[in-house]
């Protein structure tokens, strides 16, 4: 009648401890599904954030040359005033660089208006200075006043600033993407935690029986933790793969021309979503462990 050590075991050695946790039930499916769904959404949000980030970067750099200084004066004053204006611009905070355009460049800019045949040199075309802001931007009114003083023929023209809202919008989208990602991460954590708790509450009877027949806390907690960590992890793996597949298959994602604006991961960015399952697993691990120890604490 004693617990002999020879002979074939009733429980196979490998899965012995796992067997004590009931295999199925809705709470199990819930944990799996919650992990999968949230991982899917997380991958999606990640792709969104990265894509809007790329978009914002692109627009920001494309639209950065937003200002021009135009110097309309007599031919003899032109060089002197240009130099004076450049000096002013160089010392203006918020301006990354300022550069006088060459005649050829001006011709290229005017070509759409007059066609390639126009002899620009014979026209009273003003000298143009291309101004590139840094990310802080400059103070337009102050710059105008200073230019008026140093180079009276210089006119600051930042009419292209209307494009700034586009960059702002893209950046706001990027921020929102990250916020959504944080929300989804927090929700995932809470959902897995709650699902693990619900599953453990549903298994309170199992825990009680195990404790009554002499199982140690560590054994009981481990049996559940293993199970739920695995569930959260494998659910998240499934969701992540599905999410990556969905992102990959989105129309336009793989089209050549639009790759910068398309949703999708670029190069090393494909590694980002791979961090989702380990994170979900870690959340599952911690949540189950805490929940199991909490339930156990209520038992003698």
């Amino acid at each position, binding site marked *: *009648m004693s*617990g002999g050590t020879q002979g074939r075991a009733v429980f196979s050695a490998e899965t012995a401890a796992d067997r*004590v946790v009931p295999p199925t039930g809705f709470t199990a499916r819930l944990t799996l599904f919650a992990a999968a769904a949230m991982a899917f959404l997380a991958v999606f949000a990640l792709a969104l954030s990265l894509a809007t980030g790329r978009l914002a970067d692109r627009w920001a750099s494309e639209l950065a040359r937003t200002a021009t200084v135009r110097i309309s004066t007599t031919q003899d004053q032109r060089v002197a005033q240009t130099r004076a204006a450049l000096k002013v611009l160089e010392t203006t905070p918020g301006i990354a660089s300022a550069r006088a355009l060459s005649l050829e460049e001006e011709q290229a800019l005017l070509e759409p208006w007059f066609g390639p045949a126009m002899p620009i040199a014979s026209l009273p075309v003003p000298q143009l200075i291309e101004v590139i802001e840094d990310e802080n931007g400059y103070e337009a009114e102050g710059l105008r006043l200073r230019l008026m003083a140093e180079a009276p023929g210089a006119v600051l023209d930042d009419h292209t600033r209307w494009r700034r809202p586009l960059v702002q919008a893209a950046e706001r989208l990027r921020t929102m993407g990250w916020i959504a990602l944080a929300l989804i991460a927090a929700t995932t954590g809470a959902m897995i935690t709650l699902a693990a708790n619900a599953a453990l509450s549903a298994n309170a009877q199992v825990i009680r029986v195990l*404790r009554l027949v*002499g199982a140690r806390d560590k054994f009981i907690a481990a049996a559940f933790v293993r199970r739920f960590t695995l569930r959260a992890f494998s659910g998240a793996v499934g969701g992540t793969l599905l999410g990556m597949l969905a992102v990959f298959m989105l129309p336009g994602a793989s089209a050549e021309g639009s790759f910068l604006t398309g949703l999708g991961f670029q190069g090393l960015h494909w590694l980002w979503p791979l961090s989702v399952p380990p994170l979900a697993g870690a959340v599952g691990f911690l949540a189950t462990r805490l929940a199991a120890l909490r339930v156990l604490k209520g038992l003698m």
Partner: protein
Amino acid sequence: MIELKDVNYGYGGADLLVGASLSLGAGSFHFLTGPSGAGKTTLLKLCYRELQASSGRITLFGQDARDMGRDDVSDLRRRVGVVHQDCQFLDHLSLAENVALPLLVSGHASDPGNLKELLGWVGLGDQAGSLPAELSGGERQRAALARAVIMSPDVVIADEPTGNVDWEMSQRLLQLLIELNRMGKTIIIATHDMNLIRAAKAQVSARVVRIKDRRLQIAGADL
């Protein structure tokens, strides 16, 4: 093995047990009786530290019950086989797995021969593969007894182990416990069945403890 000294216990309200003293020596055989709701189950729970005394001193295998850590309690439960009044099983495991559960959780391998013999003794040889939900009330009770003794524990605590079985079967179960007692194990059985007590007294020197008016009495002669 188990000693209670001047133990008081109550569930929040008035005390249910007052000044209870009891000593279960190695190899002793006790019956615990008393009307329903008197506190038999409560007293037994104090003996396997499912409950802790409000006051007084409980010594389990030489260790003060108050000083036991959670793992000490687990170890205690491996040395004490308990048949609970409401037989609790893992519903997803077969009868055989449930009976072998104490071996599993303590890391022992189970000997299928032993298990089979034990199941046969309690009349469950054919039901080894059944789930707990597929057992009759008496079959569950017998399974609970089998689970309590499979580790060959030093002490067997049985709470109403024969409430749902017929007379012949209860004799068989008693026989099992008597045999364990003869092997030197300590036995304590809570029961309402006076016939069972009489049958036991004919074979071993069993003492009968009665809970009456919140106090423990040794009832020797009155049976």
